[in-house]
């Protein structure tokens, strides 16, 4: 298993290096940040001076080498537009996104796990239909619609919750529920179908035949095996959330990684785009690695 993990880490490092090359080249195809930064009244001389100041007049290979060598020393660079070091900027925005993603995950799991299990038990019944409606709604309604509706109902009409920004626990409720609902849909569906498969299997019949309580059969024996696909999905979607739930963050003016990424793309702020992409790639890789490890712990066959 240690060898397996070691191989995964090497693969992850290679993936990250490829990511740096791809994103470095891709962002430069989209145009020069100078043409976004400078006001309409800027002169040619001003444009040339800014290109030179940002080092964009140097050969691409040299720019990449500079970027990579600084990166290896832990220096993510300086933002073109904000005139600030990227490290603290990234840290603050990632922290905000991490908190939101965790809260959303909590909402999603809390909603999906009991509903998924209970829906599988009452197949075709009212609870199953309710679960289907929730799953369908979560999957088919884009988060900018649910977000705006949530703002309208709970913020404007009822006045219960603040509608923008990050601060007290109240600020988490609307964006976390919006993201969590979307997330819960996938978990719920996977868990329900997994449970349906497992409930018909021999070992569950044996457990029931042994006279075990139904709750023990469901929550202890069946859920353990049915949870595997949902767990994979959970890890993957957590990674996606950490990569920045751009739409939700923009709708709720949440100062997270998604907002930072979206702004930086609009401003062609190459160093920030590169740093955000690298961070999200690393996050997803780490989460996938963790899921592999958890998988192996859950299923002894994988360890062999």
């Amino acid at each position, binding site marked *: 298993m240690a060898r397996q993990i070691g191989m995964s880490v090497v693969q992850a490092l290679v993936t990250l290096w490829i990511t740096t090359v791809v994103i470095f080249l891709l962002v430069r195809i989209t145009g020069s940040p100078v043409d976004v930064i400078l*006001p309409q009244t800027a002169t040619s001389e001003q444009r040339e001076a800014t290109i030179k100041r940002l080092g964009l007049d140097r050969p691409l290979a040299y720019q990449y080498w500079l970027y990579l060598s600084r990166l290896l020393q832990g220096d993510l660079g300086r933002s073109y*537009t904000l005139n600030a070091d990227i490290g603290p900027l990234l840290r603050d925005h990632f922290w905000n996104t991490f908190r939101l993603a965790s809260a959303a995950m909590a909402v999603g799991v809390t909603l999906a796990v009991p509903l998924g299990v209970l829906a599988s038990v009452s197949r075709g019944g009212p609870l199953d239909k309710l679960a289907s409606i929730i799953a369908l709604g979560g999957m088919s309604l884009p988060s900018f619609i649910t977000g705006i509706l949530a703002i309208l109902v709970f913020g404007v009409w009822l006045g219960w919750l603040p509608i923008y920004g990050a601060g007290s626990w109240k*600020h*988490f409720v609307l964006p976390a529920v919006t993201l969590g609902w979307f997330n819960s849909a996938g978990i719920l569906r996977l868990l329900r179908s997994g449970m349906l498969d497992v409930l018909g299997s021999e070992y569950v019949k044996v457990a029931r035949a042994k006279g075990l309580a139904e709750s023990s059969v469901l929550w202890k024996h069946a859920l353990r095996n049915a949870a595997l696909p949902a767990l994979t999905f959970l890890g993957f979607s957590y990674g996606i959330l950490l990569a920045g739930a751009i739409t939700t963050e923009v709708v709720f003016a949440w100062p997270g990684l998604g907002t930072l990424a979206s702004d930086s793309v609009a401003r062609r702020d190459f160093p920030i785009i590169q740093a955000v992409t690298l961070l999200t790639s690393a996050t997803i890789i780490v989460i996938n690695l963790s899921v592999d490890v958890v998988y192996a712990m859950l299923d002894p066959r994988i360890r062999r």
Partner: protein
Amino acid sequence: MRGVLRLVVAIIVAGASWAMTADVQAPAAKAQSAATTSVTVATVEWIEQFDPGVLASGPGMNYKGSMFDNVIGAAAGGVLSKTTGVIEDWVVSPDATRIVLRLRKGIKWHDGTEATAEDLAFTLTRFGADDGTASARPTARKIANLEVADRYSLKVTLKEPDSVFVYGLSPLEGDMLFIKKDAYRKTEKGWELVDPERPVGTGPYRFARRKLGEFVEYEAFDSYWDATRKAGFRTLRIVRIVDASTRLSALRTGEVAVAPLNPEQLDGARRANLRIMGPKVAAIPLLMFFGSSDPAFLTNKVEFRKALVLGYDKKAIAGKLYPTAVASIATGTPLFSPVSLGWDPALPAYAYDPQEAKRLLQAAGYDGRPVKIWSYPFGSAPELPLILEAIAGYWQAIGLKVELTPIDFPAFRPRLFTQPQPWEKQYAAHVGFLVPLPRPSTLNNFGTFMISQKAGGVAAGYWNPDKIDRIRSELGRIGDLKELDRRLRELNRELYNDYWADAIAFRHLVFGVTSKVCGWTTPDGMDVPTTYSTLRPCPQ
């Protein structure tokens, strides 16, 4: 298995806990519970740094504009003011090459020290530095020499005569703000703030705190030099809300008191009992005929340019796209506006006349080549692609072939800077929008949009570069602004029949304002200085 489940549960609980135990005070909750002495404003653009020499232009000013003063002030109607800026008087030499600026006495920085002419000299130096990206940089680059004559006087010598130099020191034409010499240190490439987290200005509000990406908070500066313009609120909090519908909702819930609105939101805002405020004539979408100085393009001929201008119904298009609170139909010669020197209110908007347009196309010898339309949204006028689509339809109806090319402005913009500009010759014309600010001096806009690249221009949109370069140079030498106004008025009438471009509308900025705010001075003819320092609370 239990261990794993416990781990998962622990992660979930921890996630929820982080959410619950956030230590930052909630902006909304604060806004709701605050006394009327605090006000929260939403902005769209967000430039999270406090050096006005870098990226100060445009709405980024909103973020920090309230803590700085203008060098020369501005009053309503596009007029320079000797009462609202830190300069109390200026004298321009008859040949327009030397200016003496007189700094007001008793202006205090937020750290308690007094502002002097050394700071004024530094302001002009910093804005003209190599690392400067502000829109005032071209103004500062015109300076040949600065001499501090005494504690409050600065002598400025220009490289070339420029009668409208002083406009560039005001919010009417740029984003120059008064900055403190000691707050900066020299770097290899320019200047940087000694302490970016403790910015200092002389404005009615002083910096209090901020949280990256979330808010910036200012508090009233009690020692502000102008008693009539002291801060109206104890605290000014600026937050960023990008999504337009969230901004309107935040106004409706009262979480913010002022927020910019999109044109289509005005009805909703009025239904929610919000007031609509903001400066009029803040931008002028201008239909340009790129490369018209090249005889290879039919736009080099006045008949063809006139056919293009008369060939679409400006009133119908603007009427559909702009509610009256958002814009009015542009009249007169492009680059002249109600707030500019040389404005002639008698000149009407170019009238829609498809029959005449068809006749002119024939007279110009239209050969069936398509007209290339470059379509991109612009920050201050995101509706431009819609307008161009409508114009393309009108032009097709008069027999023109058109080729509409959607493009991102940053991808298009390098064409303007390339010398010579690379306009493909297989087209009859190249057409697109630029969005000048209604700069009252008029001449500075000539510089950006009309004169040739050889003479320092950018868009170089006038069909006869020799003529416009000469005119710009001559007018720049007139030190007397009244005389300049008279000469520009003559030129205005002459250029009207040139059809060198077409202004679509005088675009206003619109903000929704709640009942918490009872007054806000937003001089017309400017978008750059739309700061919140003049917000006034309602009487208790």
